[in-house]
């Protein structure tokens, strides 16, 4: 069994950064999602409970694929910081991975982030979006 990283458990704002959302966060989607290279890339948030945002990526191909996700923030091209995750093996259709959260600054101001994702037949280099995520088709902000 993999080592389990601590999950949200009622964290809030900045204290949630680096933790995975759980049911206490009451997650919802933000804006329009899209698919790129069979990855459905969704911006997710917990507006009132965890006060944080993250990215969820789902494999939409009928074949199993490596699936990776990243939430990028900071710097000119959102290249400075990231929360990243990749499936431990190729995952089947409809299976998701989601990144740790990026908590709101002071629990109030939403950090400006990009949501990135990709799938592939081989392991993917991380973080998704590379050195200039703002210019990558694998990444997007909210529309």
């Amino acid at each position: 069994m993999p080592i389990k990283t601590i999950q949200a458990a009622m964290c809030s704002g900045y204290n949630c950064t680096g933790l995975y959302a759980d049911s206490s966060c009451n997650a919802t989607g933000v804006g329009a999602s899209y698919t790129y290279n069979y990855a459905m890339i969704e911006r997710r948030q917990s507006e009132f409970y965890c006060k944080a945002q993250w990215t969820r990526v789902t494999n939409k191909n009928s074949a199993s694929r490596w699936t990776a996700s990243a939430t990028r923030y900071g710097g000119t091209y959102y290249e400075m910081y990231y929360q990243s995750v990749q499936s431990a093996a190729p995952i089947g259709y409809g299976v998701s991975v989601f990144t740790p959260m990026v908590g709101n600054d002071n629990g109030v101001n939403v950090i400006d982030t990009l949501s990135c994702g990709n799938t592939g037949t081989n392991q993917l280099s991380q973080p998704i979006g590379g050195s200039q995520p703002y210019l990558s088709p694998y990444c997007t902000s909210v529309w």
Partner: protein
Amino acid sequence: MKKIYTLLTFLMAGAILFLLGFAFNWANQRSAQASIDLSGIGITQTSRQPVLTPTSLLPTKGAILETLESPRLDALTDFRRGPLLNDEIRQSLIITQSQVVKDVLLQVSDVVLYDSRAYIKTCISSPDAVDPMDFGSSTLTSSEGIWINFYINGHPALISPEQGRCLILEYWDIPPIYATSMQFTMDIVGYVVPDEGRFCEAYQRRSQRDQRVVEAGIEFSCDEVNGAFSMEITRNDQNIPKNIVYGMVQDVVVGAVPGPWSFDLPVIHMQ
């Protein structure tokens, strides 16, 4: 004699003045003509009409934009504009075709082309009428290309178990399309992904109502670990090989129903 000479002098002066006036007028007319010609060139430039291919098929607005206003956007620039769906396009997407594969009804509209985008409304029925369904890999094809990437726009219309969940897929980077139809294929469909922290609750519920899992006496433990779900088979009454059991359970919990559903969709050009 002197009077006659004076009179002739006046007449000659008048004739000269007349000729000078005529020459001046002629010169003015030539000059005016030249101005008309120049301004004529200007008018031709500003009122030039697009020369469309002599065909009964309309090009997309993207094609007209390419001819008149600006070069076509590259794929990344177009993508960065985000979804462009509006109410007018939404209302023009009317369900016209349907297919049933493995008890899943897929309904689709015609393809609406506008700007550099192609829109298709699709509704997917739920086989158990409990968990709503979501799309799988969806390919749009014409003689101009193949597209697999799209925005997903929700549809606020009433959702019934018969009609299912409706979405509007918006493909970007569509060039001018001259064909009268495009091919749309959805390879697979499945349940909507549960919210974070609720994967296992949904997966256990789905597996407990699946006849294959129940009859095979399969049970599993489930956990969410590091942004993904993890499961272990805890009961396997019929000793089905491990890889087959894992594959079966995974298909059941995500509700995977392989198709394909394939349609030949008429093309509608919105101006």
